[in-house]
């Protein structure tokens, strides 16, 4: 007997959650890789624009003062692509529970770093979250907390649903 319907509440929540978080992560990655310098053609100019944008993002990471300059550059070159990969995997919907776990962990790290900077009253003029520069303030923390709460809930629901036999699986 099937234990869950094709679209029960938890599945709906996970579906909406992964689409929302996936789109948000893809947009965040796009913002870091292709903004503020946006040149698509020719190839060498595109490469230059991406390099310039990642260098800019490294500067923003450095203002949080939790890693050295070299590590900030390393992080700035890796993070947008991790975000892009996680976002796309969530949108695709394959092994969602694992990628949701990754997103939740990443959001925990983001929130910790932002909260630390906020409490230390660091002068963060651009948190580097999205394309439009925004100073770190209480709203940034609230927004990231909401993202994290949504990610944790979706992760929990995804694991609960994964324990059940798939509704469309052939009966054994």
């Amino acid at each position: 007997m099937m234990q869950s319907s094709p679209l029960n509440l938890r599945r709906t929540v996970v579906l909406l959650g992964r689409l929302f978080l996936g789109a948000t992560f893809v947009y965040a990655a796009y913002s870091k890789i292709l903004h503020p310098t946006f040149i698509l053609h020719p190839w060498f100019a595109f490469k230059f624009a991406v390099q310039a944008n990642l260098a800019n993002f490294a500067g923003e990471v450095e203002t949080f003062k939790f890693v050295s300059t070299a590590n900030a550059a390393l992080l700035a070159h890796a993070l947008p692509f991790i975000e892009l990969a996680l976002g796309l995997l969530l949108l695709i919907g394959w092994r969602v529970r694992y990628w949701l776990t990754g997103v939740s962990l990443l959001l925990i790290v983001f929130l910790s770093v932002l909260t630390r900077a906020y409490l230390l009253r660091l002068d963060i003029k651009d948190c580097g979250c999205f394309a439009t520069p925004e100073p770190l303030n209480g709203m940034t923390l609230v927004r990231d907390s909401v993202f994290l709460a949504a990610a944790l809930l979706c992760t929990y629901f995804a694991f609960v649903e994964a324990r059940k036999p798939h509704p469309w699986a052939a009966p054994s």
Partner: protein
Amino acid sequence: MSRSYLARLTFALIFLSGALLVGCNSQSQSADNRPASSAAPQTTTGSTMPVSTPAPPHPAETEAAPVQAAPTKASQASAPQIAPAPASTVAGIPDVDPHKTRGSKSAPIVMETFSDFQCPACKQLYLGTSRQLNDNYVATGKVFAIHRDFPLPGHAYSRIAARYGRAAAQLGRLEQVEQVLFENQEKWEQTGDVDGTVASVLSPADMTKIRALIKNPAIDAAIEKDLALGRTYSVNQTPTTIIHYKGQTYPVVGIVSYDVLHQFLDQLLKQ
């Protein structure tokens, strides 16, 4: 916890996060969507003022020493007769003030840099990239560099510093003034003492001329022209460098390290 409660909570959370995301972005994007004349640009590292909020005039700007005050009819009468050089067109780029350029007009690449003396990112670009660029590309005739003033409304002393920069350029002293303003940015942005900072590198005779020149309304008009030109390029952050090459335009926003820039310029020149 009942299922329906969880469901409501989840939908509320997702809706709230979506609304927050849209809200945060629309707040900042609204500045970009406004007519260019009213958009409040910001520094690359972000302005301390919200983008959609016009910065109030800083008390120091209005109560500063008379030499730093906006031009008045009386002051205009006493302004020296050093007329700003007529702006020309170089490689199709309008309003090129010859006093604010470096290099050969026949250079294959033209770089227009929209900069604000009070912007930390502009300082970083100047100290980290521009000097090497001048030595290796401008001095060798590969790049023609144009300095454009783009004082941001969120910076209390940007406009005053731009006036001093413009006035110094008329006397051929832009390099010294640019250097001293960027190198001492943290000091004068606290005190507002742009005049003292500029005076530290110029002779008293030059300072007398500059103090008179900044009262000339043509200086402010030239700054406004640069601002208007920047808006036509959709400049909304400083520093923004517009690279022109063979009719193509490449807008570069923010700080670019010399290593990255020189690779790009070499690739452009190879084309």
